[in-house]
């Protein structure tokens, strides 16, 4: 329930989004997020019994492209776009582990 949105909920969402949030901001966001969620909650009044969930808002399906590669970006351009680079690698602050998704 939106009115029960807690400071902990705000902190968790901020953390998942990698946002640093001050105590004062956390309280403000708690109220604002509760209002947003309360607004969306009105959808709960609609009877959706028997309605299939949509996979996508557009009606289009099967938007596919042929397996034809195009020229890749020049690695020199990639280096320029990167905040920091070394020996062709994009350099980021040291991270641990193997990666999460794949």
């Amino acid at each position, binding site marked *: 329930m939106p009115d029960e949105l807690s400071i902990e909920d705000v902190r968790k969402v901020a953390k998942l989004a990698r946002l640093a949030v001050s105590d004062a901001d956390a309280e403000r966001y708690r109220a604002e997020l509760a209002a947003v969620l309360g607004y969306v909650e009105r959808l709960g009044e609609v009877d959706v019994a028997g309605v299939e969930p949509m*996979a*996508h808002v*557009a009606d289009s399906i099967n938007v*596919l*492209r042929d397996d034809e590669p*195009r020229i890749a970006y020049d690695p020199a351009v990639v280096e320029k776009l990167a905040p920091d680079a070394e020996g*062709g690698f994009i350099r*980021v602050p040291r991270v641990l582990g193997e990666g*999460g998704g*794949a």
Partner: protein
Amino acid sequence: MPPTVQHVRPIIGMEIHVELSTRAKVFAHAPSPACTLLEPAGANVMTDELVLALPGSLPVLNRRAVELSMLVGMALGCAIADLAVWDRKSYFYPDLPKAYQISQYADPICGPGVVEVPGLDEQGEIDLDADPTPIRITRAHLEEDAGKLVHDCAGGTGTGVDLNRAGTPLLEIVTEPDFVSAAQCVAFARELRRVCRFVGATLGVMQRGHMRFEPNINCELTLSDGRKVRTPIVEVKNLNSFRALAGAVDYELRAQPERYLEDGREMGVGAKSTRGWDDERMTTVAQRDKEDAHDYRYFPDPDLPPVVVDAAWRERVRAALCELPMSRLRRYVKDYGLALKQGEQLVEERPVCDLLDASVEAAAATGMDPNDAGRQAANLLLQAGARIANERAQETGDPVLPSDLGVNAPQIAALLAMRAEGAISADGVDTVFEALASGEHAGGDARLVAETLGVIIVRDEGQLETWCDEAIAAMPEIADDVRAGKVQAVGRLIGDVRKRSGGSADAKSVREMLLNKLGQG
């Protein structure tokens, strides 16, 4: 007194990641590294605006990635979905700059299926007479691979990111927990690799990470007090060799009963852990779970409309299926009478199997027994063929198969027919094969080449007799040995006659004639 473990029943499931060999990436138009054996020319040479997550870039799905996924699904007996939906899996990690991976959550491209893993003997080798083990496939979904991180960048102060691999199509195949041993896991993994390579879905180079295995392992322990408990599930990440897969499963099956006796922890919510594999010490090692790693907040990707697969598309894709490796292995061993090892060697490479099958068909059309033709053609490909292919590979530095030598099925069938007629010797078959594989006689008619090379067996008794007499005259001591009863010495004389004939005299006829002449017939 604390209970002891009386019996361990392993419960193992697997997730297998297969990099599909499309030329372009799955949602981007940048070239993909998994379609070639060549190493990329450096870091970050296969990127574009989507791979780099530049503002305004939008994904478009690669048709071939979808079709290869369907093809693998069909080969694994999976139901192909009518509707496949693309979801975002949120995670912050520099190996995917978008901060999410495009994957599939509720509506994957391939649904449940069953794979028959060959039965195994006690050494873990395939036993074609043993019952196969059905392994249930839960699903297979298509997603994008992540980039690679290099942790020793800048003297350890930073992490280097290479996005060449980011966006490579990755098919994740998930099984039910139907395995009961490391050997079974490996047999399945090998079979999966063969199948995926046969249908052309992946190059399957293990060292390049084209296939990565993640077993989920736990055990049901029967305790001395009669209780049955289940150990917590351990998922071992990112194993990229069969040896590592076997090692990790075996290690966990030994370690889990001990861990249970120490800490008493059982399977349950929050008890699952992730471990890595230490290839040198051959042990699994605890991995620090990334915080929030499981809070992926999947939701449908608004940039990608769903894929709807109708019957016509499904059948078009299905037409690219072929007879699968296990069925061929069974045929080669059971019908052709090949040794299991020979059969396994053949089914490693589909082009070699296809050449073999086409040669048998061509030989059968000339009236030869197909099983005889199969055995002889297989031997030819695995011996002369493999030898020449190896030599050529050494010369060029590129892999060469016996099917890459330019010798075609009609030529092989003609060789087998000549051999069956007794027109050429076994050596003659190899000589002509080698000539057909070399530039000079490439594409030539096998019979004409055999005549040109003078390896057609001479049936002219008079000529044979002259050569035998000449050989006996040239080696009188050996001839005396044979006369005195040392029959095995005749080999030297046979060799001499064959040399005089330029290889065109049949060893068996020569032997008979020599022994007759020397009073040993």
